[in-house]
C-alpha cells in the first residue's frame, strides 16, 4: 500500500478488523435459521477474501466483480424467497449487503458503515425470534461490534484485543441503567405505518378448516400455543375449553368455517361468576385469539364475532399479550335468529345411515332436543367406541364409516359426527375448535397450552337456553379431558413421534421436568413483562407508580431520571473528590500561595526559576530555600528527573518555617513596589 493511499483513507486497524469478523459471525448466526443456506457460504467467501487481503495475498475486488457479486446476491435472494420485497427478502438482502460490504472494507468510514449495519441486522433478528435467549445472546454481537468501533480509534488500545473488548463491555454495562429508564418511560406509540411481517415460519396450529385427521396431526406437536395466568385460582382442567373458532360448514369430508364469518356481535348476558386471566399467545399467523366462553377483551382492534370467538383485525404474527374476562355460565343467544339456519346446513346427500339414525332419534325424542342430545351422548358411552389417533381410513361416507363401522376416532371424528347427527335431527349445532386443558406450571401458577392440546367439541342450540357446549369425546375417553392426551393414549407412540427432542418427552423425569417448567416460567415472565410491555401495559404500570399519567409528567420524570443517572455515573467516573491534581503542581501552587502572602506573585509566562530568582531577591533571608524548591521543582518537572514529591514537600516545609508567620499586607505592597522599580 502506498503512502499516498494510507493518507487519503485511514486504514482499518488489525484489532478492528478482527472484531468486525467476529461480530459478523455472531450477528448472522441467529439469522441462519430462516435465511437461505447459501448465505453462510457467502459469509465464508467474503471473510476469507478479506483476510487474504489483509495478509496481502490478494487484492480488493474490482468494480465489476463487486457489481457481479451484488447482482448474484440479489438473484439468489429472489430465487430463494420468490420476491425482493417483504420482510424475509428484505432481511436476506440486508444481510447479503452486510456480508458483501466486508470485501470492500478499506477505510474507517467503510468500517463504520459496517458496524451500523450490524446493529441494524441485530435488530431485525428480534423480529424473527424475541425469546429471552435471543435477547441475551444479542448482547454478544453488540459487544463485538462496539469493540470493533473502539478498535477503529487511533489509540494505544488498538493493538490489544482483550482490553478493547473489556472496554466495550464496561461501556455497555454503564449504559444499562439509562436503558432501563428509557425502556420504562419512553412512550409506546402505535405503529406509524404498516410494515411487512415475517412470513411463513412453519407455525403449527389450528387452521380455517378441519378434516378428521388434522387435529390428530396437530397432537404430535409439542410446540407451545399459548400461556394463561388467572387472577384467581386456576379452574379445574375439565373446565378449560379454549375456544378458537367454529366450523359451521360441512361438505361431506371437511368441516370449515363460513366463508365470511358473521361479524355482528351476538346477543348474550353475563351470568354467574366471572374469570379474569391474561394470555400470551405465540404467533399463529391467524387472526383469532383463544379464550374461555364467553369472553370479552379490551384489546384494541379485536372484537367478538357472531360465533363468540375473539378475532383481531390482523393475524397474530408476534407474541401477543391480552387480558380477558369470561363468564362460563353466560346465556348465549337465547332468542332464535335467522342466523340459526346456517347451523342446520348439511350436504344434499351422503352418509345415509347417519341420516336415518338421526331421523329415528328425532322421532323418539320428538320436541325434546335435550333428551336427544343425552341419548346421543349415552350412545357414545354405552357402545364400544374407541379413542385413537390412528383411525382406519374411511371411504366416501366418512360419518357413516365412523359411526357404524370403525367406531374408532379422535376428537374431531366425535365432534363432527355428533354435529352431523344433531343437524340431521333438526337441532342447530356446530363444531368448536380450540384447545382443551393445559399443563399447570406450579413454578409460575399458570397454564401452558401446547399444540397437542388441540381439541374439537360441539355446541348446540336450545330454544330459550341458547348455545350449549358439549364434548362427545368425554363420553369415550374421560381421561383425555381430566388428565390430558398422554394419559388418554398411553399405548400409542404416535403422540411422542414429533417430540423426540422436546424436553416435554421427558416429563416423567422429575428433576428434568421441574427444570423445564422453571425455564418456561422464566420465559413466560419475559413475554409478559418485557415483550408485552406495550401501550396498555406501560400505561398501567406507570399509573401504579405515578398516580396520574400525562405527557409532561412522564417527560419530566424521564429527563430527571436520566440526569440523575448520568450525574451519578459522572461522579463515579471522574471522582472529583479525589482531586487528581498532579502532586508536583499542587506543591508548586502551595509555594506560590505562600509567596503571595508576602506580596510576590508570579507573572504570566514567568518560568519557575525566573520567579524564584526574583523572589529570592525580594526575600534574601529565605533565598536558599526558595531557590532549592524551585530547582527541585524544575528538575522534576522539566528535566525528567524521577518525581519525588516527598522531597519537594520537605523543602517547602523548611521554607514555610523560615518565613515570618504573617506579614501585614503593607509589607507585601512594599515588596511589590520595590519590584516595580527594578
Amino acid at each position, binding site marked *: 500500500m502506498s503512502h499516498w493511499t494510507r493518507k487519503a483513507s485511514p486504514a482499518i486497524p488489525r484489532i478492528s478488523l478482527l472484531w468486525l469478523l467476529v461480530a459478523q459471525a455472531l450477528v448472522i448466526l441467529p439469522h441462519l435459521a430462516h435465511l437461505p443456506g447459501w448465505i453462510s457460504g457467502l459469509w465464508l467467501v467474503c471473510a476469507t477474501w478479506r483476510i487474504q487481503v489483509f495478509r496481502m495475498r490478494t487484492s480488493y475486488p474490482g468494480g465489476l466483480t463487486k457489481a457481479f457479486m451484488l447482482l448474484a446476491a440479489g438473484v439468489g435472494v429472489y430465487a430463494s424467497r420468490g420476491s425482493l420485497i417483504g420482510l424475509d427478502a428484505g432481511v436476506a438482502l440486508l444481510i447479503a449487503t452486510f456480508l458483501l460490504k466486508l470485501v470492500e472494507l478499506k477505510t474507517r468510514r467503510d468500517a463504520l458503515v459496517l458496524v451500523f449495519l450490524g446493529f441494524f441486522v441485530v435488530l431485525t433478528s*428480534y423480529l424473527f425470534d424475541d425469546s429471552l435467549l*435471543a435477547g441475551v445472546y444479542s448482547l454478544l454481537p*453488540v459487544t463485538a461490534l462496539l469493540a470493533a468501533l473502539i478498535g*477503529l480509534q487511533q489509540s494505544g488500545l488498538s493493538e490489544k484485543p482483550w482490553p478493547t473488548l473489556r472496554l466495550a463491555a464496561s*461501556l455497555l454495562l454503564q*449504559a444499562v441503567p439509562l*436503558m432501563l429508564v428509557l425502556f420504562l418511560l419512553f412512550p409506546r406509540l402505535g405503529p406509524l405505518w404498516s410494515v411487512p411481517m415475517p412470513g411463513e415460519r412453519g407455525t403449527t396450529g389450528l387452521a380455517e378448516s378441519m378434516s378428521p385427521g388434522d387435529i390428530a396431526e396437530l397432537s404430535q406437536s409439542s410446540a407451545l400455543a399459548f400461556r394463561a395466568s388467572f387472577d384467581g385460582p386456576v379452574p379445574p382442567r375439565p373446565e378449560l375449553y379454549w375456544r378458537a373458532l367454529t366450523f359451521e360448514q360441512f361438505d361431506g369430508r371437511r368441516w370449515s368455517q363460513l366463508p365470511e364469518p358473521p361479524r355482528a356481535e351476538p346477543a348474550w348476558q353475563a351470568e354467574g361468576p366471572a374469570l379474569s386471566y391474561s394470555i400470551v399467545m405465540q404467533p399463529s399467523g391467524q387472526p383469532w385469539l383463544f379464550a374461555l366462553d364467553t369472553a370479552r377483551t379490551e384489546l384494541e382492534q379485536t372484537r367478538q364475532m357472531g360465533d363468540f370467538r375473539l378475532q383481531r383485525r390482523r393475524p397474530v404474527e408476534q407474541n401477543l399479550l391480552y387480558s380477558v374476562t369470561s363468564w362460563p355460565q353466560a346465556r348465549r343467544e337465547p332468542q332464535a335468529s335467522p342466523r340459526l339456519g346456517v347451523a342446520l346446513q348439511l350436504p344434499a346427500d351422503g352418509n345415509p345411515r347417519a341420516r336415518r339414525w338421526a331421523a329415528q332419534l328425532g322421532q323418539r325424542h320428538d320436541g325434546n332436543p335435550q333428551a336427544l342430545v343425552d341419548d346421543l351422548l349415552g350412545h357414545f358411552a354405552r357402545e364400544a367406541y374407541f379413542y385413537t389417533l390412528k383411525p382406519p381410513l374411511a371411504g366416501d361416507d366418512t360419518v357413516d364409516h365412523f359411526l357404524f363401522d370403525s367406531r374408532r376416532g379422535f376428537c374431531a371424528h366425535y365432534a363432527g359426527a355428533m354435529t352431523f347427527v344433531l343437524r340431521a335431527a333438526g337441532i342447530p349445532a356446530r363444531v368448536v375448535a380450540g384447545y382443551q386443558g393445559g399443563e399447570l406450571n406450579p413454578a409460575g401458577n399458570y397454564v401452558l397450552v401446547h399444540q397437542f392440546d388441540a381439541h374439537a367439541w360441539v355446541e348446540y342450540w336450545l330454544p330459550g337456553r341458547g348455545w350449549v357446549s358439549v364434548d362427545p369425546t368425554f363420553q369415550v375417553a374421560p381421561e383425555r379431558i381430566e388428565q390430558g392426551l398422554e394419559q388418554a393414549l398411553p399405548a400409542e407412540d404416535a403422540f411422542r413421534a414429533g417430540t423426540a427432542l422436546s424436553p416435554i418427552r421427558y416429563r416423567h423425569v422429575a428433576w428434568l421436568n421441574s427444570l423445564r417448567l422453571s425455564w418456561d416460567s422464566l420465559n413466560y415472565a419475559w413475554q409478559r413483562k418485557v415483550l*408485552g410491555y406495550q401501550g396498555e401495559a406501560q400505561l398501567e404500570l406507570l399509573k401504579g407508580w405515578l398516580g396520574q399519567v400525562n405527557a409532561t409528567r412522564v417527560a419530566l420524570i424521564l429527563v430527571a431520571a436520566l440526569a440523575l443517572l448520568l450525574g451519578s455515573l459522572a461522579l463515579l467516573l471522574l471522582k472529583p473528590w479525589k482531586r487528581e491534581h498532579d502532586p508536583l*503542581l499542587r506543591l508548586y501552587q502551595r509555594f506560590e500561595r505562600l509567596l503571595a502572602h508576602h506580596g510576590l506573585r508570579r507573572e504570566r*509566562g514567568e518560568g519557575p526559576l525566573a520567579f524564584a530568582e526574583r523572589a529570592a531577591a525580594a526575600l534574601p533571608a529565605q533565598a536558599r530555600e526558595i531557590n532549592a524548591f524551585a530547582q527541585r521543582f524544575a528538575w522534576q518537572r522539566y528535566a525528567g528527573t524521577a518525581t519525588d514529591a516527598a522531597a519537594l514537600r520537605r523543602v517547602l516545609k523548611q521554607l514555610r518555617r523560615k518565613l515570618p508567620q504573617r506579614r501585614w499586607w503593607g509589607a507585601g505592597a512594599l515588596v511589590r513596589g520595590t519590584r516595580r522599580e527594578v
Partner: protein
Amino acid sequence: MPARLFAARWSRWLERRIPPARQVRLDQRRIFILPTPQGLMFGVALLLMLLAAINYQNSLAYGLTFLLLSLGLVTILHTYRNLAGLVLAAGEAPPVFAGEQAGFRLRLQSSGRAHRGIALGWPPAPLQPVEIEADGSSEVELFLPARQRGWLRAPRLRVESRFPLGLLVAWSWVDLDLAALVYPRPQSGELPPAGGGVEDDEEPGMASTRSGVDDFQGLRPYQSGDSRRRLHWKAWSRGQGLLVKDFAELQGHDLWLDFDSLGGDREARLSLLCHWVVQLAGHEQPFGLRLPRVTRAPGSGALQRDLCLRELALFGLPANPAEGRP
C-alpha cells in the same frame, strides 16, 4: 464581515476563558464537546432503529435502540474524562531560520488516569496523535512553518480526543505561550569590498583592522558566499578546483559586520548578515555586529553567534514574545 467579527469575538472569549499559560490543566472550564459527523450518523441510525421498533412493536428492538442511545450518553462522560485532567506544559522551542519548520516541545502529563487517542496540533494541518499512560507523561514536538524573522507566536493549540467510540469529539484550545525565535533567512552574498572590515573611523585604535586580510593562513575549498576576490585562480587553472585564500585575523583586528555598509533593503541586509554570522561563527572567527542603535562587541563561539542572530531576528521588532501577539 460577520464571520470575521464572530471569529474575533470567539478569540476574545477564549482569551478570557482559557488565558495563556505555560502550563494548562484541562478541566470542565476548558473542554468543549460535540458529536462528530460519525456521531450524527449514529444518531440517524438510532432514529431508523427506533422507527423499526415502533412499527414492529418489538420490545427487544426498543431495548437495543435505548441501549445504544444510552451508550451514546455514557460516551459523553468517557470522551470528556479522557481529556479532563490532562496537563499540558510548554517545553523549549529552539530558534530556527526563517523558511524552516519551528519545533515546539510539549510535555503532556497525566494526573492519574491514562489518556488515549489524544491528538494535538494547529488545524488545518493534521493533528499529531499521542498517548499518555496512567500517571505517566509524553513529549511531543509540534512544528509550524517559520515564515518571518522575529518571534513566532504559536496560535492557540487544539487538543482533541474522540476516544472511545469516535461518536463525540472533546477538544480545547489552549495557549501555552509558545514562541520560537526565528532568525532571518540566511542569504549568501558578498560583504562589501572592505571584507566586512568597514572600520569605524572614529576609533583610531582600530585603524589597522583593514589589513586583517594580510595574515594568509592557507587555502581551503570554496564555499558559497566566499568572496570571489579571495579565489585562488592559479590553483583553479592548475585544475585543483576552486580554492579560497584563507586569512586568520589577529586579535584586535576584528571583523565587523555592519548593517549600514550593505546595500539593498532591510530584510536583504539582515539576511546577508545572518549568513555571515553563521559562516564566521562556524569557522570560529571573531566578529562584531553593528546595527543601527545596537552594537555587539566582537567575540566568537556559540554564544556570540546566538546573541547576534537574536539581534538580527528582533531588529526593529518587539523583543518580548508576548507583545508580538496578534
